[in-house]
């Protein structure tokens, strides 16, 4: 069992290392990258089944005691999020293998191996049991994302990359100072020990730590008012890279926040979180309405949806945390699919601007269908997965009598639907009023891109089919998070 935990981190790293060595042999490199991702994904599903049957498992790396060494912990929350995250990366890599041989794709020599490093960082961030390893995992993710964003060296990428790097580097520095702060206050950085020691601290110190890490994880998760880097930088990267970023990076921030703030019992920050969640939802949805480009509209939706997850967390009730986890699991694949479809649109139309494209529904009905399903899901319409997730969060809000945030959430949902309609009108209906040529793509590469998107759409539909099972699992994960005794005892063994 413990070897499965290490596989999710080591396999993509090894794939990346050998992938860099195989620069001269593109086919071997692509196969190797995909194989390493398949191994990691398979291991993550193994972890899910094992944790579901046998409960939380901890792996002390190098056999050190938990106070000194690195501990990797697979509890149900981690085991639920990990397979979703890794499957997304795998599907995107398949899409990318098709796309990167066209002019719009990323540099294949770098993109595949860097995606492997990013995958290792994602696994480490999800599984880690201490604050400093979380910092290292964030750096692993961010450094590879910096390079993925800017490696083509085009002017708009460098320009957007600067904002992205500076904002995230600042958050990382705050993270490091926060680690020092926590160590000074408690004498440990192990999450299980922190779950015991932080609630015993003075109220001021405790809330200071909570607020500090709210800012740190909030910058990574792009909550209001720390989101400005996101809509500038995401649309400039090649689609496959944006798809991974939008699907995963902000969600890792919110994942870390859910884990840290529930484990250490920061219930008193709930009201602040709810207020910020409400503003984030509305600002994101309004921002999306103002945009005129498919990728930019979708980038603003990322921000808006983060608000719902924050709302679930900010309620600090069992139902709220369940809703947040369910939303996280639903949102990652849906968002990724939408960006992949954005890539297909761009490939077909030669642009992602709403003004310059049109009439795609008549010419390419398959792309329209691929877009419609996740778009309706994101807007929260039944019977798609977004409805289940949104319903869970909102009903938790009603249970807690937080009427204001529930109203805001419903309004933001309507605004999301409106901006999805805008994409639909601009891209799929109307007439093709543009001279831009489709990006020339070989037939088998196009087939690869379409089948990857198709698999991902099917994946989002599977989530709504298994909504009941996922809801039960999320509920158990939430109750484990809110009662950290099992986590603590497993780590200390």
């Amino acid at each position, binding site marked *: 069992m413990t070897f499965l935990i290490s596989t999710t981190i080591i396999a993509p790293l090894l794939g990346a290392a050998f992938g860099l060595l195989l620069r001269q042999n593109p086919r071997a490199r692509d196969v190797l990258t995909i194989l390493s991702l398949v191994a990691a994904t398979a291991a993550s599903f193994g972890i899910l089944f094992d944790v579901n049957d046998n409960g939380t498992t901890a792996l002390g790396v190098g056999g050190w005691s938990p106070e000194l060494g690195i501990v990797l912990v697979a509890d149900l929350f981690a085991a639920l999020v990990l397979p979703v995250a890794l499957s997304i990366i795998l599907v995107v890599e398949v899409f990318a293998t098709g796309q990167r041989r066209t002019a719009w794709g990323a540099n294949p020599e770098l993109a595949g191996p860097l995606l492997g490093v990013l995958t290792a960082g994602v696994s480490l961030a999800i599984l880690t049991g201490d604050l400093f390893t979380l910092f290292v995992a964030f750096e692993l993710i961010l450094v590879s994302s910096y390079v993925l964003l800017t490696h083509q*060296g085009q002017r708009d990428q460098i320009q957007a990359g*600067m904002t992205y790097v*500076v904002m995230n580097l600042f958050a990382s520095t705050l993270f490091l100072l926060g680690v020092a702060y926590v160590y000074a206050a408690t004498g440990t950085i192990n999450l299980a020990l922190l779950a015991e020691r932080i609630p015993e601290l003075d109220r001021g110190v405790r809330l200071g730590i909570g607020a500090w890490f709210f800012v740190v994880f909030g910058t990574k998760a792009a909550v209001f008012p720390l989101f400005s880097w996101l809509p500038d930088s995401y649309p400039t990267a090649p689609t496959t890279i944006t798809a991974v970023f939008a699907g995963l990076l902000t969600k890792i921030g919110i994942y870390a926040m859910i884990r840290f703030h529930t484990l250490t019992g920061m219930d008193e920050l709930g009201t602040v979180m709810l207020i910020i969640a409400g503003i984030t939802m509305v600002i994101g949805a309004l921002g999306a309405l103002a945009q005129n480009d498919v990728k*930019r509209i979708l980038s603003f939706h990322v921000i808006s949806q983060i608000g719902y997850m924050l709302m679930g967390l900010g309620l600090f009730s069992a139902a709220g945390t369940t809703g947040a986890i369910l939303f996280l699991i639903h949102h990652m694949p849906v968002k990724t699919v939408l960006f992949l479809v954005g890539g297909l649109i761009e490939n077909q139309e030669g642009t992602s601007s709403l003004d310059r494209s049109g009439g795609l529904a008549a010419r390419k009905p398959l792309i329209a269908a691929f877009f419609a399903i996740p778009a309706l899901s994101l807007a929260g319409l039944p019977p798609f997965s977004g409805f289940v997730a949104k319903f869970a969060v909102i009903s938790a809000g009603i249970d807690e009598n937080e009427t204001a945030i529930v109203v805001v959430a419903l309004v933001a949902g309507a605004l999301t639907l409106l901006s999805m309609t805008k994409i639909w009108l601009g891209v799929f209906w109307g007439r093709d009023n543009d001279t831009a040529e489709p990006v020339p793509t070989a037939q088998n590469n196009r087939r690869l891109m379409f089948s990857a998107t198709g698999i991902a759409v099917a994946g989002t539909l599977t989530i709504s089919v298994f909504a009941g099972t996922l809801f039960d699992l999320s509920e158990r994960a939430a109750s484990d998070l809110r009662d950290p005794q099992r986590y603590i005892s497993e780590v200390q063994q």
Partner: protein
Amino acid sequence: MSVSLLAAIGGLTTVGLYLITARSLSRIILGFSLLGHAAVLGLLTAGGPPGDAPIANQTNPLATSNPLPQALALTAIVISFGLTLYLLALARRQQVLTGNDLVEDDLEDHRIALTEDELDIHADLDRSGWNAPVADESESAS
């Protein structure tokens, strides 16, 4: 916890924060270096009172300083070293592309901030070919 260390952390943070609010990336890089030093010193102070160098089997474990924050600090230094290099490369690239290393405003934000009239003017200019987009000559992916 010594007052001089605290003063050093405070000073480094102040100057670092001031520098990263600048527009020029080279100043921002200097700012991040200083902030990184402040964070590392923060980790050191978090380790408690100073003592002998913590070397296994050489010094009395009871008289040494706490080695754990030092290990963390070392990792953090290596990471910030790599990131500084990356930022320098980014600044260089920006200088090659634009002649300076300023962090620029987002063009799309400007477009959205325009009023309806201004948009009409732009649309007219577009139609007359005045604003025709310059062909992107920067190299695409190799």
